């Protein structure tokens, strides 16, 4: 058990080092995120200029929501997706397969490494953002902070598994571009990264309630702003957790199919 933890932790440690080796890319990524969200921020502030209350969302709460959403959308970055698809395309995946390490767990560990080193910088950027825009809505007690941290872990797990499954699809498509656009489009829309889910029409909201995307942005951001608590929170956590389990096994399944494909057509 300890050996296993050490084995996967080493993947995480190396991934952290790798992001640090790309100092410029690292900073440019964060910068582009900040630019995107500056735009989004101004769009929303224009929406709020005419009416201070949008279906129960005050501008103050919205500011916090947007910042947390920025943080979460940047956490599991595209580097993970690119890594998997690159390995498939170049055939370098053979090298990793011939070691006694589980590919899915190793990929998860590596993504965690990317997220930790990128997360620190993004968190700093977000704090700066909060300071400049005067976002004041934050969790009021330790329990909420704790629930927020748990929800962030759920968010990362869900997003990683989606990236992993979509990344594996490169086994069939050889190119990642289309697949990646599809995944990002779905995620941005259904996770609440663009528009808080509470502002969706009710039928659409019912649908998103049962989809896994919600856990990526909406749940943690709403826990953070104090909108999600009690029974609704328990329900959302339960659904998110079930999805993580389902996606984990879906990852296994897609992996098996991908391996069969390699078997038939050659590496």
């Amino acid at each position: 058990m300890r050996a296993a933890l050490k084995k996967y932790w080493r993947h995480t440690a190396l991934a952290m080092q790798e992001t640090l080796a790309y100092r410029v890319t690292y900073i440019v990524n964060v910068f582009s995120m900040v630019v995107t969200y500056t735009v989004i921020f101004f769009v929303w502030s224009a929406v709020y200029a005419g009416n201070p209350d949008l279906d129960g969302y005050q501008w103050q709460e919205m500011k916090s929501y947007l910042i947390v959403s920025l943080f979460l959308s940047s956490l599991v970055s595209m580097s993970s997706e690119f890594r998997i698809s690159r390995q498939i395309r170049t055939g370098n995946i053979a090298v990793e397969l011939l070691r006694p390490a589980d590919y899915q767990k190793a990929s998860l560990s590596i993504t965690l490494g990317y997220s930790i080193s990128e997360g620190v910088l993004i968190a700093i950027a977000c704090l700066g953002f909060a300071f400049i825009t005067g976002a004041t809505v934050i969790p009021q007690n330790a329990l909420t902070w704790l629930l927020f941290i748990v929800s962030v872990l759920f968010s990362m797990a869900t997003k990683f598994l989606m990236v992993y499954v979509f990344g594996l699809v490169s086994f069939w498509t050889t190119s990642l571009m289309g697949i990646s656009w599809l995944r990002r489009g779905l995620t941005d829309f259904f996770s609440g990264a663009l528009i808080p889910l509470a502002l969706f029409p009710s039928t659409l909201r019912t649908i998103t309630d049962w989809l896994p995307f919600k856990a990526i942005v909406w749940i943690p951001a709403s826990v953070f702003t104090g909108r999600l608590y009690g029974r609704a929170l328990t329900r959302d956590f339960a659904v998110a957790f079930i999805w993580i389990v389902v996606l984990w096994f879906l990852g296994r399944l897609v992996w098996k199919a991908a391996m069969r494909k390699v078997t038939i057509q050659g590496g």
Partner: protein
Amino acid sequence: MAIIEAKGLSKTYQNAVKEAGLAGALKHFIKPVFTEIKAVSDVHLSINPGETVAYVGPNGAGKSTTIKMLTGFLKPSGGQIKINGMDPYHQRLENTKHMGVVFGQRTQLWWDIPVSESFTLLRDIYAIPPKRYKENLAWLSEMLGLTPFMGSSARKLSLGQRMRADLALAFLHDPSVVFLDEPTIGLDVAVRERIREFLKKINRERGTTILLTSHDLDDIRDVCDRLVVIDRGTIIYDGKLQALLDQCVRCRTMHLRLTSDGEEFAKKIGKHANLEVIASGPSEASIEFDRFALSAKDIINLANTTGEVIDFRIDEPDIERVIKNVYEGKLDISGNRGHV
């Protein structure tokens, strides 16, 4: 007991059949048609612990496919494999613990971080005990001269340095069997030499079983005591390298200098059953002949019918020619077919 055992191993790929042009592509899109290509068929291999085996064959003969199946990366279409008593495909994770692999065209190194970090990664992946890890690392670094670039990132290494690092990584966890697919491809003579020395030493001192594919005949002669030749998916020779050479002593090459035109001479005797003119010029000719059928004197007598032999020289067969002859089916090796 054999450490590598393959019985009736075969691999069939499906290959898309597309007609030319847009219409063909469209047709394939709607109703794909595949043909089966037999990459490897009915291969039997049995390799004992401590053996060093060269697995050779022309491009596309099925070498890499066999290696991919033996290492557990590809699932065989038929037949059985046991490596250390395990099925490498179905018990992949367990099997890889005792196995090392180097694909000459790929690397295990993390591209952007120091080489030494890739070693710590493998230390933790294979759970190598700290003391053993230290010993092995020191030993491998010394043998392969890794120290100068342990701190550089892999992307800054030369091909030779990268290959040496990859070899060290493959042997780090004391594997009992190591597969090397073209380990010396693209390397200069000095590095190749160093790698060969390393392989011989590790085989001698640790008894590691080595199976390597290579187009470099020095690799084969220097490192391996057994030769397996595959062509078009089937094994056409399996035996001692020396035995093959001995057998091939029957074909010798004679270089003649003539007073007459060599090409005319070549034309005249070219149809003779037991010899072949391999080169000819205005006043010279090189002839390969079966020494059991013809003697050197016979050749000279033949030559003297068109002109006069001024000088001659006889070459004993070199390994390159021998193997080429095996590929081309010119050699009678039926005695060794299927030999284990």
